[in-house]
């Protein structure tokens, strides 16, 4: 009897769908102890990009709103962090992080109010235009250092009564803080996915007219999603500013917005793990093609294989990496049945 119960327990545990995620978190947590400095930096950058991609997933994957200007909120939060941090002592990120996120959320609410009046391809264009607008505000005006960018003088730390609890100047601490935030954002988005709000958004994606007929004020829901996505992108922006201690207008450029859309489609639109996978896949591809060890002198033309890879991935794997097992199964099925 006991053995039977034990066997069932083992089967249930191994069938838990959360295993891949748990393993991933453990691997990321252990990495700084085994990887070289440069590669730990790379993973750190990718985790920040994952948060960015996750925030956009809420818009594109769940609500069906393709925004080509999401980098604007990433950048606004990063700049807010740099501008608000004082030049003397280390600012406490207890207020700096919320401040950055709030700025991004406010911008998202305002910009969203304008953009959401457009539909379909016009929506894509208008989000692009507003992102370009914010880019030029930071690039051309004296507001924040112009095209040369702006420096964060001192990185933030959380102090209580003079005792430093979390010092983000310490690279290790910063790495783990980022990991914690990544897990938090993932959890929040997963919870939203199961909530009434999340289901309403999914309904809007499927058929907006029907949702409106059913009595939902779709504009309000869309605006809420847009603002929330902007706020989450703000978390990534804050982390980016603190990581390098430097922000420049290029983080607002449409290339950045395009890159994050690419990450989503690479990983697989519609799933949270797709967003994270896509971010890692994108960064890995870039590093791979830039590697002089593999490509020698040709490595300086890394954008060529990257462009071809992008085209190939979008054409052949339109549902992304997460859908690869299903795609392969479908591919193999006729062969299995042939015999």
């Amino acid at each position, binding site marked *: 009897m006991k053995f039977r119960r034990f066997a069932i327990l083992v089967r249930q545990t191994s069938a838990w769908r959360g295993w891949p995620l748990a393993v991933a978190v453990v691997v990321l947590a252990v990495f700084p102890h085994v990887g070289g400095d440069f590669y730990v930096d790379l993973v750190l950058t990718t985790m920040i990009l994952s948060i960015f991609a996750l925030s956009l997933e809420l818009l*594109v994957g769940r609500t069906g709103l*393709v925004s*080509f200007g999401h980098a604007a909120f990433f950048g606004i939060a990063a700049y807010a962090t740099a501008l608000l941090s004082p030049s003397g002592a280390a600012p406490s990120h207890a207020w700096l992080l919320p401040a950055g996120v709030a700025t991004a959320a406010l911008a998202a609410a305002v910009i969203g109010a*304008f953009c959401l*009046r*457009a539909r*379909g*391809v*016009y929506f*894509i*264009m*208008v989000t*692009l*235009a*507003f992102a*370009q*607008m914010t880019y*030029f*505000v930071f*690039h*051309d*005006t*004296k507001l924040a250092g112009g095209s040369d960018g702006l420096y964060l003088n001192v990185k933030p730390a959380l102090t209580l009564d003079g005792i430093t609890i979390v010092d983000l100047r310490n690279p290790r601490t910063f790495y783990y803080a980022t990991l914690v935030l990544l897990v938090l954002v993932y959890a929040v988005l997963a919870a939203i996915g199961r909530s009434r709000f999340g289901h309403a958004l999914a309904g809007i994606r499927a058929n907006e007219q029907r949702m409106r007929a059913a009595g939902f004020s779709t504009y309000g829901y869309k605006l809420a999603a847009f603002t929330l996505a902007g706020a989450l992108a703000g978390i990534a922006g804050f982390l980016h500013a603190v990581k390098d201690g430097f922000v420049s207008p290029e983080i607002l450029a*449409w290339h950045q917005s*395009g890159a994050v*859309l*690419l990450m989503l*489609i690479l990983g697989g*639109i519609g799933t949270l793990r797709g967003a994270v996978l896509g971010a890692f896949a994108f960064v890995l591809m870039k590093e791979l093609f830039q590697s002089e060890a593999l490509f020698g002198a040709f490595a300086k*033309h890394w*954008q*060529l294989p*990257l*462009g*071809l*890879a*992008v*085209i190939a991935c*979008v*054409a052949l794997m*339109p549902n992304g990496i997460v859908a690869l097992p299903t795609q392969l199964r479908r591919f193999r099925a006729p062969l299995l049945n042939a015999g």
Partner: protein
Amino acid sequence: MDFAVFLVQCLNAVQYGLLLFLVASGLTLIFGILGVINLAHGSFYMIGAYLAYALAPLAAAHSGGGFPAALAIGVVLSIVFGYVLEWVFVSYLYEREHLQQVLMTYGLILVFEELRSIALGDDVHGVAVPEWLAGSVPLGGVMTYPVYRLFMSGVCLLVALALYAVIARTRVGMAIRAGATNREMAQALGVDIRLLYRIVFAAGVALAVFAGMLAAPVTSVYPGMGNQVLIVSFVVVVIGGIGSIRGALLASLLVGFVDTFGNVLVPQIAGVLVYVLMAAILLWRPEGLFRTG
């Protein structure tokens, strides 16, 4: 500013606007008729400029007829290139969602940039203005206006008129207008949509390449020149209305004026003004100035 200077700045604005029109008209045709968001359109402009640089020795060798010959060669090459590109790549984009089109054409930008880098290098180049256009016309007391810029405006205007003539007065134009309004109906009525799409795409590419070749002496030839033009062209297309040539013309001139006078009067925010213009127009007319279909 006094009146004479104001007139000269208007000349500058019109010249920039007309050049923008060449690029935007191709984009609006591709966007409106084929329904494809083609981010690589800026790359065609860049290809045109580099083509002008590559063909410059040829142009210099035959002093009088060299430059028009180079332009003609460029146009022919680009039509062939556009035709082939549509056949092997773009035709697979019609059935896909906008996001996939955006990303695949984004990959195309990367490919074109690197191919250009491999073939012609990454340096910034100047292209010489042909001898017979190299003079300057005196305007007012102090300054002169380069003849070449006047030539550019003239040529762009001619192309605009030719485009109008083709679209409004020929059978091909009629088929294009029909395809833009209602694709399925046009197909049902016997228009060979596949061939039409190929022609329209090739024409769009040729317009952008031609614009790049024409602008090369004025803007210099440098990597990344396509990106700037791309975004502004999209803004023009959206302001003018997707698929409308008339809209593209009006919108390009509007953008030309806003940009030129913005750079002179309020240089700090000049970059933002164009987008503010777009936001304002979209608030007033959500589908652009002139809608089609």
